[in-house]
């Protein structure tokens, strides 16, 4: 457990008592083939809160999010610098294998993407299976609890063996959330998880995120200002600099970012004046 500390940005820090910290980002920057895509990201993700990343298209939100579970490892030419510390361990340099990291930091993607060749049940327990769990009783228990947590159990419990592609888009996305939850991750990364869904399905996912807060820390990328305001507790605003590389402009509580930001560009963005 890391000690509690103030946000080391150049911005004025509101004196708020901060809770325990899940992930610490220190000067995180990501470059592709030497071209910086995002840089200067220094902020703390607090436990059991929802942190949103907002900013115009191309400001590096997705890039930053993917650095948090080392998805850039496989991208040729990608380089992540700075430090990302999960519960006291540097995820890039500490003795944490990448597979273990990813069981602790799960991810939900923009497009609902259940594995097309697997049933609902198999999708829900796929993470456990990848991790070597074969015991039926454990899988059954995890399938039920994760599908319940994703508010999907009641509608699918009678057809667990059906192919996941038969579900509606919103249900598929909830299945993807269940799939990630089954591993009991500490952090759940979500990249615009509702942008492919209709408003009703979106609302359901949002409610779900709020309800999950007690159990998992959520970092979510969103383009939807209302969504960020509705569901997130903290908010990071990213913007492209002169050289078109994204950088962190401001990080604070969502309330502050939306009502009383330090940087005028943040206000412009949240009011929809550009981007």
């Amino acid at each position, binding site marked *: 457990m890391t000690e509690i500390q103030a946000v080391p940005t150049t911005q004025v820090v509101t004196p708020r008592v901060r809770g325990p910290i899940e992930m610490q980002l220190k000067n995180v920057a990501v470059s592709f083939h030497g071209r910086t895509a995002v840089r200067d990201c220094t902020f703390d993700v607090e436990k059991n809160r929802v942190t949103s990343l907002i900013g115009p298209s191309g400001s590096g939100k997705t890039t930053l999010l993917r650095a948090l579970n080392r998805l850039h490892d496989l991208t040729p030419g990608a380089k992540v610098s700075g430090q990302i510390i999960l519960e006291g361990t540097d995820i890039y340099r500490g003795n944490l*294998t990448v*597979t*273990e990291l990813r*069981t602790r930091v799960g991810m939900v993607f923009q497009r609902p993407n259940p594995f097309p060749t697997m049933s609902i049940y198999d999708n829900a327990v796929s993470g*456990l299976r*990848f*991790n*070597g*769990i074969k*015991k039926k009783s*454990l899988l059954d*228990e*995890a399938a*039920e*609890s994760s599908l*319940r*947590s994703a*508010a999907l159990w009641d509608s699918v419990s009678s057809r667990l063996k059906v192919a996941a592609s038969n579900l509606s888009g919103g249900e598929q996305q909830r299945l993807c959330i269940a799939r990630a939850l089954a591993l*009991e991750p500490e952090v759940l990364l979500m990249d615009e998880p509702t942008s492919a869904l209709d408003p*009703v399905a979106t*609302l*359901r996912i949002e*409610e*779900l995120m709020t*309800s*999950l807060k*007690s*159990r998992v820390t959520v970092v979510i990328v969103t383009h939807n200002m209302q969504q960020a305001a509705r569901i997130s507790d903290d908010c990071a605003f990213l913007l492209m600099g002169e050289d078109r590389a994204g950088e962190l402009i401001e990080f604070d509580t969502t309330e502050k970012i939306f009502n009383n930001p330090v940087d005028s560009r943040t206000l412009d963005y949240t009011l929809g004046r550009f981007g």
Partner: protein
Amino acid sequence: MTDLIELEEPTEPSTSSREEIRRISDNARARRVVTSRIMVALCGVALLIAAVPLVALLYQLIDKGAGQLNLDFFTKLPQTPTLIAPNATGGISNAIVGTIALTLYASILAIPVGVLVGVYLAETNSKFATTLRVIAQTMAGAPSILMGLFAFSFIVHDLNVGFTAIAGSFALAVLMLPVIIISTEIAVRNVPNSLREAGLALGAKPHMVSTKVVLPSAVTGIVTGVILAISRAVGETAPVLLVIGGGFTNSWQPFNPVSAMPLAIFENAKSEWPSQRAQVWGIALVLVAFVFVLSLTARIWASRKQQVRN
């Protein structure tokens, strides 16, 4: 759309299960990582194994073939070695002339028809066109020996033309046709519709648009397909084996028997004379060089044009 969900209290698995899961996955992790490394390595090994025949074959072709190449090899007619002159194999000029003649006549037969059919398929949506497309695709993969059987029964036998260059060219033309048709259709369909519409909007007749606008833009793809078809025909043995008769002179006549490089390889590989078996490597080297130059030209040209377009 149903009502909004009733959110239950998030249920979590019992502590004992969580611990068991954690324990199992911690224990399994190292093994999983090692398995993954091994399988990745095995895939790499498979790639290397796939490369072995290519490297070995090319090495041996050059090693054994290059020494065979000299002026006589290209300009003299073949001889059968005798006990007195066991190394007198002569040259392969008849096979070179035969291959060029066969390919030339086959191209004359196949290219115009193939291109026109390809354009037809690209500009028509009918049952007939769909059927023809399936036929072309099936024929493109059909065993080449069947083209030889066709040429034999139709040209050699029914038309009573006999074992001649033209019978071989017919077989090769049937082989080339589907390849040309398929690549022409792709090339023509890849021409943006906007180009076509622009032409029509300027009041050009449809056939003018097709010949003056569409075909010129598709010409790279068409030529690439034609070169690939030719390079395939040049190396084919089976179809010509049955019908060209194996002439021993340098003959350009369509109605004479001719030889061909693949045929000379096929016949002489089984020769009891070591000198003839050695010479075969020379023929194979020339043939492979010919085919490589053709297909690399097609490839490089196609990708160059692609870049220009992008």
